[in-house]
């Protein structure tokens, strides 16, 4: 098994090079990934569906292309997996909800089409919080997902499976979505790289919608180069998503190794002042010191309106969700209940039976915030906060190239720890929501293990609109200096 183990420890970029050199086949890598999922996923819970036969067929096709010297590119033959929020014709899409249990979409999401056109081998659909609502994957209607670093802890959410599958070496790259931190937080908790691109950088066509002005699909990888390779393939204008930008896609690999010298890093000191656990703050400060040592300049920046971020987010996101989730009514797809009792009964009973507690909570909150008499006081006002946040960041970016700080207030918490009070869970997002609200790119890159708890800590980098290249460059500079995190040990012992 050690041969397969070493194969699974390769980064996506390393595997791609090995496939190109024909030192290994896509079939081998795919079989290793499938075997790993089989051996570990009963404990991890990262996958809601495994598409083994389809994956094997696509792996064989990739090997056939490689034999002809006709490889499609860096992702050809590489086993990947995607959050179960991306529509796929070859597997059900549940959005982590009973209301879509068994639903098979008649079309693929644009990002899925792009990955498959690049030759990627999709091995399955990944666990998530229901309709992307949550920060721990505990809101999945099917099963929780566990953190491979400590199976009693959350991998984060809502893209919990996307981060856990990487940490567990079940796939070489994954896609998630980020509306208020749902890529960056699980990436931080699981010790992997997670990128939320600028709103409009990646197409949302075929992505089950949560909050349409905040949602953004993005890549997760065990290394910065892996995340960059995935972003390169999925980014870019899609005529089927009118909110996707026509701005040309940068070459994310080109600047990756430029290092941190000459970069100015903005530090919002208020973010490190209080409310951040001491071990997390220590690792974040050490990362900032690394940047200085590497030749970057540190400047203090003020983002005075970020303290309103959670309040604004938890009005706007539920408001938009209440509209997006209106389509789950038993008419065209998914669960249907109550039809014999009439149309209204069908709507009510379908949604009562199909939605979990958190979607219901947010639909009610959002509907209220948008209702006549409250729209101006709540939704409109929160939309104004977004403008103020955008201005805070614009002012800061006059003096720096990237902004650095924590991703989360603490390391991964225990399953069940924050379920008593939904608001306690919402506070996990305090550092991440501002990116989505201000429509900026952000990423999480590992910056070490917590000194006592030995769990991953993530550094958040936030950039100017469409400047993912600088974020990736800065993240890579830190990664190169620190070296990779060790693999989480817990799964091996019970192998």
């Amino acid at each position, binding site marked *: 098994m050690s041969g397969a183990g070493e194969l699974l420890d390769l980064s996506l970029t390393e595997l791609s090079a090995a496939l190109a050199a024909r030192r290994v086949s896509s079939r081998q890598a795919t079989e290793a990934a499938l075997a790993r999922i089989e051996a570990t996923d009963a404990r991890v819970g990262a996958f809601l569906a495994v598409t083994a036969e389809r994956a094997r067929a696509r792996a064989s096709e990739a090997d056939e292309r490689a034999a002809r010297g006709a490889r499609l590119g860096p992702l050809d033959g590489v086993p990947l997996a995607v959050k179960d929020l991306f529509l796929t014709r070859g597997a059900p899409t549940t959005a982590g909800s009973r209301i879509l249990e068994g*639903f098979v979409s008649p079309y693929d999401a644009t990002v899925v089409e792009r990955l498959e056109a690049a030759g990627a081998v999709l091995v399955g659909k990944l666990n998530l919080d229901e309709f992307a609502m949550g920060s721990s994957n505990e809101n999945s209607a099917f099963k929780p997902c566990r953190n491979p670093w400590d199976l009693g802890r959350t991998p984060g959410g809502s893209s919990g499976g996307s981060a856990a599958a990487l940490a567990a070496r079940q796939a070489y790259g994954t896609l998630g979505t980020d509306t208020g931190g749902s890529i960056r937080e699980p990436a931080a908790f699981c010790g992997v790289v997670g990128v939320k691109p600028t709103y409009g950088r990646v197409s949302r066509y075929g992505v089950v919608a949560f909050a349409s002005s905040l949602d953004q699909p993005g890549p997760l990888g065990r290394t910065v180069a892996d995340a960059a390779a995935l972003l390169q393939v999925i980014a870019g204008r899609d*005529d089927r998503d*009118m*909110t996707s930008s026509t701005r040309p896609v940068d070459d994310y690999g080109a600047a990756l190794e430029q290092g941190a010298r000459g970069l100015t890093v903005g530090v919002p000191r208020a973010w490190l002042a209080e409310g951040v656990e001491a071990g997390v703050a220590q690792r974040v400060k050490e990362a900032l010191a690394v940047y200085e040592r590497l030749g970057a300049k540190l400047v203090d920046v003020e983002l005075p309106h970020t303290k309103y971020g959670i309040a604004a987010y938890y009005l706007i996101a539920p408001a938009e969700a209440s509209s997006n989730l209106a389509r789950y009514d038993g008419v*065209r797809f998914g669960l249907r209940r109550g*039809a*014999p009792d009439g149309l209204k009964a*069908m709507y009510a009973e379908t949604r009562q039976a199909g939605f979990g507690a958190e979607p219901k909570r947010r639909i009610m909150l959002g509907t209220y915030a948008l209702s006549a008499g409250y729209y101006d006081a709540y939704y409109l006002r929160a*939309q104004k906060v977004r*403008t103020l946040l955008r201005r805070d960041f614009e002012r800061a970016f006059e003096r720096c190239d990237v902004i650095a700080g924590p991703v989360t207030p603490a390391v991964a918490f225990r399953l069940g720890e924050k379920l008593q009070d939904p608001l306690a869970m919402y506070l996990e997002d305090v550092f991440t929501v501002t990116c989505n609200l201000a429509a900026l790119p952000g990423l999480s890159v590992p910056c070490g293990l917590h000194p006592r708890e030995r769990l991953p800590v993530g550094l958040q980098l936030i950039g100017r609109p469409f400047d993912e290249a600088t974020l990736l460059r800065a993240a890579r500079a830190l990664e190169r200096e620190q070296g990779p995190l060790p693999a989480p040990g817990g799964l091996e012992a019970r192998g």
Partner: protein
Amino acid sequence: GVEPMTHALAEAGATPLRPDEVRPSLPPEEAVRAAPAREGTFFKVPRIIE
């Protein structure tokens, strides 16, 4: 006064509208395939008008 951020994309003109031309899209048979109840290419629902 502060303007609400009604468009998350700051760039004007970054998302041009396409000409209003009919393009191939999902065939009706495909669109109703996942329906809990259907009749031909129609979604079947309980009576709407009492």
